[in-house]
């Protein structure tokens, strides 16, 4: 308990884009409530702090910790474990922390391939062909950077998590609501949902909040929004656009479909689904309008990247999690991990 008697708040950014942080700031004046009700002890994006300060804190001393980003390297895991020790309530915040998010799509490739793309492909001007090493013997002594994992993991795959708050990023309204709830709970005016619950989201799927007209579905072919002008009032899936809405937990007010782009499933599966992509595949395949193997194959050719399309933000949370080669690399890397 601190001098000002306020419960402590922490937020951390693992393998992520930073969007989650912005989303928190996006709650506008509610951010003042956060400040009014919490003492922010650790929030690298917002204020300066050192890991050792956190290590110095007594265990369980942080009341609420929002951790966003996937676990991509040894540092991510180290801090996740640290904050788990220090925090009472650890929230997997955003798609990456919940199910790996976009970073987890690299579970389709090995670290070698990933580094190769990052440092040697056209995207990087690297004439000396420099590739960062895990350790470097400098005059001052050995410098070490975090060790990169082959398989990107979700937060709950390295530490126990109390709550999941999905979204890429989570909707600011939802964040505000959650913050309010926690504050109420602190005042004993509300009770928190059971551990392991998904907070800041609904129980059905995006279609619930989508205004587009829906009919019985029959898909004769898949296409993409850049290829034609979709009917603005009609369900995108019915127009052959692979919209993840039907399988995705609601709570985002169907922003993407409303704006005319297909849902990418960032709010993850509903309680009824164990594997987001499998569910979505089952549903989408079921409404393919053909009983002829050749024609079915032809129709499926319209989905060039199956895993990318059905596990856009959920691969780490899926049953298989990573491709066979990636797992093999991970297992060989395992010992010195």
């Amino acid at each position, binding site marked *: 308990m601190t001098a000002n008697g306020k419960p402590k708040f922490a937020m951390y950014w693992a393998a992520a884009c930073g969007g989650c942080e912005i989303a928190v700031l996006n709650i506008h004046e509610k951010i003042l409530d956060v400040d009014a009700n919490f003492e922010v002890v650790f929030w690298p994006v917002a204020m300066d702090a050192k890991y050792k300060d956190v290590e110095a804190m007594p265990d369980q001393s942080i009341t609420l910790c929002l951790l966003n980003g996937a676990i991509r390297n040894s540092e991510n895991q180290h801090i996740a474990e640290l904050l788990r020790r220090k925090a009472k309530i650890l929230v997997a915040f955003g798609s990456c922390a919940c199910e790996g998010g976009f970073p987890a799509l690299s579970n389709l490739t090995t670290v070698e391939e990933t580094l190769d793309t990052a440092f040697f492909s056209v995207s990087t001007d690297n004439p000396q062909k420099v590739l960062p090493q895990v350790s470097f013997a400098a005059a001052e002594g050995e410098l070490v950077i975090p060790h990169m994992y082959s398989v990107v993991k979700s937060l709950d795959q390295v530490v126990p998590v109390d709550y999941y708050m999905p979204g890429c990023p989570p909707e600011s309204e939802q964040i505000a609501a959650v913050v309010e709830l926690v504050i109420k709970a602190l005042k004993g005016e509300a009770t928190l949902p059971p551990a392991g619950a998904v907070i800041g989201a609904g129980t059905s799927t995006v279609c619930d909040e989508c205004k587009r007209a829906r009919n019985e579905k029959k898909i004769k072919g898949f296409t993409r929004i850049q290829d034609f002008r979709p009917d603005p009032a009609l369900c995108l899936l019915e127009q052959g656009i692979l919209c993840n809405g039907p399988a995705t937990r609601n709570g985002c007010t169907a922003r993407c479909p409303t704006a005319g782009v297909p849902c990418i499933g960032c709010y993850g599966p509903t309680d009824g689904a164990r594997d987001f992509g499998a*569910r979505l595949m089952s549903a989408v395949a079921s409404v393919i309008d053909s009983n002829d193997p050749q024609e079915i194959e032809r129709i499926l050719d319209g989905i060039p990247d199956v895993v990318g399309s059905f596990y856009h933000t959920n691969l780490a949370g899926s049953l298989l999690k990573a491709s066979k080669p990636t797992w093999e690399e991970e297992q060989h890397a395992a010992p010195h991990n």
Partner: protein
Amino acid sequence: MTEKIGVYICHCGSNIAGTVDCPEVSRWAAEALKARGVVVARDYKFMCSSLGQELIEKDIKELGLTRVVVGACSPHLHEPTFRGACGRAGLNPYLCEMVSLREQVSWVHTDKAAATAKAKAVVSGGVERVIHHEPLESLRVPIHPATLIVGGGIAGIQAALEIADSGTPVYLVEREPSIGGHMAQFDKTFPTLDCSACILTPKMVTVGAHPNITMLTYAEVTNVDGFVGNFAVTIRQKPRYVKADLCNGCAVCEEKCPKKVVDEVFEAGLGYRKVIYRPFAQAVPKYPVIDRENCTFFLKGTCKACEKFCPTGAIDFEQKEEIITIQVGNIILATGFDLFDARRIPQFGLGRLPNVFSSLEFERLCNAAGPTNGRVVMRDGVTTPRAVGIVHCVGSRDKHYNNYCSSICCMQSLKFAHLVEERTGATVYNFYIDMRTPAKGYDEFYQRLLEEGVIFIRGRVAEVTDVPQRPEEEGRLVVQVEDTLIGQQRRIPLDMVILSAGLEPRHDAKQVAKMFGISCSADGWYIEKHPKLDPIATMTEGIYIAGVAQGPKDIPASVAQGAAAAARVMGRIQQKEIALEPVRASIDETRCSGCRICNNMCPFNAILYHADKAVSEVNPALCQGCGTCVAACPAGAISGTVFSDQQVLSQLEGLLLRNLQPATV
């Protein structure tokens, strides 16, 4: 772990114990699966015996079991038995899971160690699954008292009469203008040689006059909805152009009709009929039909001779086809057979050589009411043959056509031989592969023909030709055959050849089967529920099969099957309602977002979409429990009883032994 699970391993004598170490399996279950809630595991010689069942009941009562797993034969055999045992002991029957250790383990594997290991996995799968079972009540469906019988042949007629006599309504649908089927085309029936018409027509008349039978002839079923107890059947009544209520069956119209066409159906193409016609004199119903394709009035707009001469003004050229919808509780399919088209074997000459006849042609030829009034003559209509050959197994027992034995051809051929001999005194040759005369009085008939001097040549006929090689063959037919009893090629000069063609499934049997939701064997015959113990029921509740549609058989067998099917249906109607497996899907409204992906998943239209609430709902009355929508729902909002995600996924863990503590594998 809150459940108390009992595991029971059956030896089935040595059937299972011979390959699976049953005591070891139960010992293992008690130990390794203790943590999963197994409180008792026993093995016993015959679990299905009353003693075995008592074992289970006793444990349920004394140990307070809340779940039961039985490892024995296939659930398709004894699931009801063990569910019954649980029920008697006060445990909801659906909290019992049966796993197959016999059909799917001991009988198909040889290595005892491996089989025992698999048995353990299978039991462990059952245990994990049963934990997630929920108490269920079987669905009770009322049985509509009316019955639909498709096909007015002898099997259908028999079934119709049996049921109608028991006092419940019957709809008898027949494609042709009259009931009677193939039997009405025959002259004599083997082996007794009693006149086919004489024994059939009385039954036909009774059907026509029966207060409980609604006859729909010249009509076809076009659609079937619903399920056992309550089918909604759509029937297309083709226009007869004759008013049934006015026609008195005097047949003047038939007499006066100026146009004659070859009768391809009843006369098997051997005789002619008028364009307004009854297939045969004793047709039931008595009123005729106008064959629109050939009617001069419909073709040219003039004639109307029938109308002019009809004393009761029953002719109605305006008549339109009618769509009738009926509700029935049970359906019997007695759709019969098509005769194998012997023209498909060109070297036998049917269609090329005038004096080669198909068996059905010959039936008409020797029929007293046929085109020649029963005179056995050659195609010219006058000449009496001096030598006649009968070829058996035409299109049967032949890998080019049908592998099966058509079962009636031998007896039919013997009957032909007798009739030819009796009516023409001609020399008769039978060319056969094997002589098959298994039923009552059949072989005696064969003996009789041997005494009558009919010649039997054992061998497959190579060809029937009109190309002579020797003077005595000039201008005659010649059968080239290998006589396998003397081991020689022979050429037999003949005047007439009869091809004893086999029986084939109706050309549209597959579509019909699909419409009624049953399936056909590779040969195309309707598949019965069990080849020995349930030859008249099908996999689809409420649909029964009778007669040749189920497989080649003779008249007595067809009659027996018709009656058997009727008895089964009557039993059902007596019970008034039927218990069905409560395997059903249901949608959790709070989780359904109305995405409508499931909407066209259901072939039984059990899923309806409520636009107002924007949610879908499953109608349990129509749901057949296939679970396709459950798997298709992207939100996981649809759950299926007995085969829930939880149950299947847990069984998986069990089968893969992921449930053992600590996790092995």
